[in-house]
């Protein structure tokens, strides 16, 4: 296999993103194409599956097969594809609203099902596409047009939820550090089972203060823990904007229910004889 190494540009589709200038999701796109180049994947063997939202627009911008489906439903569509076509490299991607809110149930069950694929959650703590409503990760006191005095509702902790529900690889990264993000994506794809990467990805339009994240990131404050309990403790005690891989588990990936002691169609016909 002496194929020439592929370059990040080989994985860009040329379709112009709808994202605002300065959007954090550009960094995710850049890191993702770098990761694919580093893995030297054939573009036709990759599928990027998403739901709805700014972040979920990413499949069309990647030179790979893509499925831009329903709000919240990226994970079941990705799982169906991976189970049916196990030789493909499958990436699911979306924002905090898409994955943690409307798709929350699928997130939990994707973690426990542990299909061998990688989820990238671009977390900007706001609904960008619908112009600035609070998301499940928005701070309780953050003012929006919908709730000028804040939601008074506790944010959802996606990292801890992923750990408790059984994800086999859990990490947080920052879009402003694309080389680090690319490295984490490479590791996540290589790691068997369901991998979750929460990417801090600022919304410069509706959360301009998130531009400051680049000065607040605690780079690699998270490191691989020895157990889920230790990983949970690390997530709880680390600074809010910590990055790094916090969990690499060894649960075997789910590839389907396996042999169920059945008969083939031609052999099952006898069972209908009275």
């Amino acid at each position, binding site marked *: 296999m002496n194929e020439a190494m592929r370059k990040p540009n080989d994985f860009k589709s040329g379709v112009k993103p709808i994202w605002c200038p300065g959007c954090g999701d550009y960094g995710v796109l850049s890191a993702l194409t770098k990761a694919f180049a580093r893995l030297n994947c054939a573009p036709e063997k990759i599928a990027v599956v998403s739901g709805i939202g700014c972040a979920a627009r990413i499949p069309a911008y990647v030179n790979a097969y893509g499925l831009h489906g329903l709000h919240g439903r990226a994970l079941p569509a990705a799982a169906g594809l991976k189970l049916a076509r196990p030789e493909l490299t499958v990436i699911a991607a979306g924002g905090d609203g898409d994955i943690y809110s409307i798709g929350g*149930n699928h997130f939990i069950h994707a973690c426990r099902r542990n299909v061998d694929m990688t989820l990238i959650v671009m977390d900007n703590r706001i609904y960008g596409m619908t112009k600035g409503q609070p998301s499940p990760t928005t701070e309780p006191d953050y003012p929006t047009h919908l709730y000028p005095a804040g939601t008074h509702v506790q944010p959802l902790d996606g990292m801890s939820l992923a750990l408790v529900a059984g994800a086999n690889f859990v990490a947080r990264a920052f879009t402003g550090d694309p080389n680090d993000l690319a490295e984490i994506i490479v590791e996540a794809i290589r790691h068997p089972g369901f991998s979750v990467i929460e990417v801090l990805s600022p919304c410069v339009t509706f959360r301009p203060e998130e531009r400051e994240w680049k000065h607040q990131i605690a780079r690699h404050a998270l490191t691989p823990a020895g157990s889920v309990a230790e990983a949970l403790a690390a997530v709880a005690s680390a600074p809010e904007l910590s990055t790094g891989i916090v969990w690499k588990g060894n649960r075997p990936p789910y590839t389907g229910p396996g*042999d169920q002691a059945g008969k083939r169609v031609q052999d099952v016909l006898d069972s209908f004889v009275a």
Partner: protein
Amino acid sequence: MSDTPQDNAAARESVSVAITGSGGAGVITAGEMLLAAAAHAGWHGIQTRSVGPQIRGGEAVSMVRLATFPVEAHDDAFHLLVAVDWRNFDRFAAEVLLAQGGLVIMDKAAGDVPPPLKERAGKILSLPLSKAAKEAGSRVNMVALGCIAALLGIPESSLEHAARRRFAAKGEKLVEASLAGLRAGRDLTMQEDLADHIANLRLDRPEKPDKPRWIVSGNQMAGLGAVHAGVRFVAAYPITPASDLLEWMTPVLSAEGGMLVQAEDELASINMIIGSSFGGVPSMTATSGPGLALMMEGLGLAVSAEIPVVVVNVQRGGPSTGIPTKSEQTDLNIALCGMHGEAPHLVLAPLSAADCLFTTAWAVELAEALQAPAIVLSDQKIAQMKAISDPLPLPAVKVARKVSEACAPHAYKRYALTEDGVSPMALPGTPGCMYTADGLEHGENAVPSSRAEDHAAMLEKRARKLRNHDYGPAWAEVNGEGEIAVICWGSTAGPVHEAARVLAREGISIRTVSMRLLSPLPIEALEETLAGVKTLIVAENSHSGQFLHYLRAWCDLPQEVISLKHAGPRPITAPEVRRAVIDAIGGGRMQESNIALKEAPVS
């Protein structure tokens, strides 16, 4: 031609038996064994059940009709009713009408006969069923079955065959106990003077079939049709009455190299199969009304992104949780019109338990060929019915998705505007054709577009591919000639066909049109089929007449239209259809008006 169901000589070629008792008494088992024994002996027949929502200890009735000719539906009254007990009988009394003069056999310990039965019964016989069961070391349902078999003239060898098939896996001891119970029931019956009733109940000898007959349920046949047609990925969430379809499929799929994945909900089910079908694997889910409602957004995605999927929807009483264990034909509207936007897709309906095999396989063929979702509207009645059938041939469907070869970068157009509207689909793994399938409106190259021209072109393309397809003659079963026609869809075909048979014997010829393809509606074929018809009776198991309104919206219907409809769980019966035809003739209602709409009275 009396409208009152009566015990008469016709019972010799068809006899109906109901076995009732509280859940757990084993009346369903008894009914299934009666059917199996009759099938073994060469009769035709069906068995259905009506149960309450309780998991254990509710009410249950097993309804069996045996005949010397193929039957797909119940008669509207039972000649023999056997009660192991009367607990909660009132909950399904309306579904189990005793024929005037019919025979009731009950356990001595069961208490008083419900008053409506007392009035109709020709004879009520109180036998020590449970006592005999105890003495024989068996169960009361076996004793009841022994009684029934003796009255109907089921050969003991066939009864023993059924008992062995049923219990062999559980050990010889259980087989012997059940045989002892069956004998005890026979002996109890033979001690009584029932000569008059036996004359009415004893079936004519059947013609011995060439090959052993099958016993099939609609759910099994839908599963078989799907796997036979090439479905290899199923994702589904448990729901009554579709769960046994899924349970049947899991082992068969695993043996065929496919899989069934239990999803976390119906939203996941439909999206999982969209994902697997996007990957090129023919895919299916099965559900019932509430699940279908949850899948609507996903079905719209499958329409827009042109991803073939099959949804077998086993209808039950609605709306909301409705009557989960009982049948109705009321998901027609949501199946046709449940999606937002304009979303052309396929809707099909099997006509019988056995026909679930062909119709589901055909749905897979059409979905794959047209790259569109197909909804199959089965219902609880045929899905969980056990029907005796001649061995069914596996249908000759040709399942072939038009796929794209590898191509040069940026040359591939996933949604190319072809003449027939079907565009070659590149499957992941095909070099050069990388594209993103999208629920956003798009251009030919799959790139999202909100341009009016693109929207119009894609809407037209997605409609055209369904409109212009040649569906052949399978869109309906059309039989008979006459100025009166009865049209129906799905499982109402059984009673309609039987009514036509009875009427033919009475010298009345009618045309019957039993529709299998509901969307796209084959308007031309339908109008051609109805040419010359002056009175059209529209039969459906719906309170509001969904089918009638659908036909009215799209077709020029005959001068007079009569709506024969009522809600589930009582199905439309053959006697109801027959009476609607007789009334239409007798009333001389051949009117010139094209807006005459009458509601046929129902019992």
